[in-house]
């Protein structure tokens, strides 16, 4: 299922692709249950009233509703990858609200979906995505796609 595609830099343990599908992994405080995405790279809980130090991986809901969206018509500056010998292709970005977690998670929208196909409030689902690095190497990221 992973196709052997390595996780993009900085995203180790941010998602998991297993027999049950592709999921984003939040950090969940073992003391108070607070969720963080991305998982915190440092010990400690984001809740100011909690002194918990330990976080366990917690699979987030893979569906939500579209909180907002936009796109990028111009090439972003580095470190956004510029694969060799390829034209820049504009991409849409989605902010998706997960109901159970009451959390909004950003992501690129799957290739080929234009902003004209998006509406605030519509159901969205998580899918694996691919980013091509400036060295031309495929990297695993997450994407959002319309659909329940």
């Amino acid at each position, binding site marked *: 299922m992973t196709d052997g595609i390595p996780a*993009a*830099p*900085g*995203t180790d343990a941010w998602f998991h692709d297993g027999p049950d599908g592709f999921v984003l992994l*939040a950090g969940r405080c073992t003391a*108070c*249950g*607070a*969720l*963080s*995405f*991305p998982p915190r*790279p440092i010990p400690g809980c*984001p*809740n*100011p*009233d909690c002194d918990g130090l330990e976080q366990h991986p917690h699979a987030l809901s893979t569906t939500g509703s579209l*909180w*907002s*969206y*936009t*796109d*990028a*018509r*111009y090439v*972003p*500056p*580095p*470190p*956004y*990858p510029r694969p060799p010998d390829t034209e820049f292709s504009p*991409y849409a*970005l989605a*902010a998706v609200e997960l109901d*159970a*977690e*009451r*959390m*909004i*998670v*950003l*992501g*690129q929208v799957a290739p080929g979906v234009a*902003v004209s196909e998006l509406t*605030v*409030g519509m159901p969205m689902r998580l899918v694996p995505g691919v*980013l091509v690095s400036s060295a031309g190497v495929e990297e695993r*990221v997450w994407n959002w796609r319309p659909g329940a």
Partner: protein
Amino acid sequence: MSRPDSVAVLGVGMHPWGALGKSFVEYGLVAARAALADAGIGWRDVQLVVGGETIRNGYPGFVAGSALSQALGWQGAPVASCYAACATGAQALSTARAHILAGLADVVLVVGADTTPKGFFAPVGGDRPDDPDWLRFRLLGATNPAYFGLYARRRMAIRGTTEADFAAVKVKNARAGSLNPYARFRAEVDAETVLNSPMVSDPLRLLQICATSDGAAAVVLASEEYARRKQRDAVRIRAISAITPEYPRTVPDFPYLASDSAAISPPASRTFRESLAWSAYESCGLGPEDMDLAEVYDLTTAMELDWYEEIGLCAAGEAEKLLHDGATALGGRVPVNASGGLSSFGEAIPAQAIAQLCELTWQLRGDAGTRQVAGARAGVAVNQGLFGHGAAMVVAHA
């Protein structure tokens, strides 16, 4: 009347904004000398220098207070430099104010100056996968305008705002900016031109997003007693709130990739942006109804409308009506961005909040020329930056 919580604005000065390609130190020097002259004091009278840092100008940028002190000629005063993203200037002012209120200094020079690259702001160099600012560019290609686009589209969806509403904000600010000699963009713009400018991040077009600029602003702050002796005690800073968000943040503000989760902890009754102005109001006992004008951080036209509601100029959902009634234009009930705003200046990060104070000071002194807000006695300025930064200031007549 003297109040224990106020400091006087003794003098203000700016270097014109632009894309000029000179050292930020030169801009800062010009602004500092202008502020000292306006205050009627000499450089050797200054007892503390606070510099707003710039992160795109090497080591001198990180030690901006020192770079400016050396440029003016070492005279031995203590120095501080601080960085708070787009709220840098406000934090520098807050530091200066705290020293004065604590009795540690009578006269403080605050300077913010920047030289910025053209185009999108980018993270500082190097591979840093533990830096949220690096990650949002590397993984998502999420530039500042992309985040602005998310907020603008959200407003359109929940408030019914149209592209034409956004364009009307630009038309208003360009008109005010055309009257400001320090603004970079001084041409009036019509709505059609705005709506035909290239789309950058849907639904925002080029003329609805503020540019990046070079520029500098400086102020001299003083204790009440010192200002009285100099007979420069007309304008006072009554409050500065330079605060952080309360967990959980309910909005995916940049540079983060997600909001906090509100599943375990309910959100605070005010959003972070709302809390900025309201905490300043509450600390000085003035409210939005007392404000004669406002300078708000219009990184985009859409964001200006959000601020109207967040700083209490109108109820939630009524910003478009306030705009179209002309209340926030020059000559209206409460002009917003009488300076022309970021829309007319472009953003010179560490200078921008200080420039807001310069404008409020000119307006309250009656020195704002053709863009003067008649009879202005109190004003508010507000800004927000990356990494949980933001600030508001309330400035009023004595």
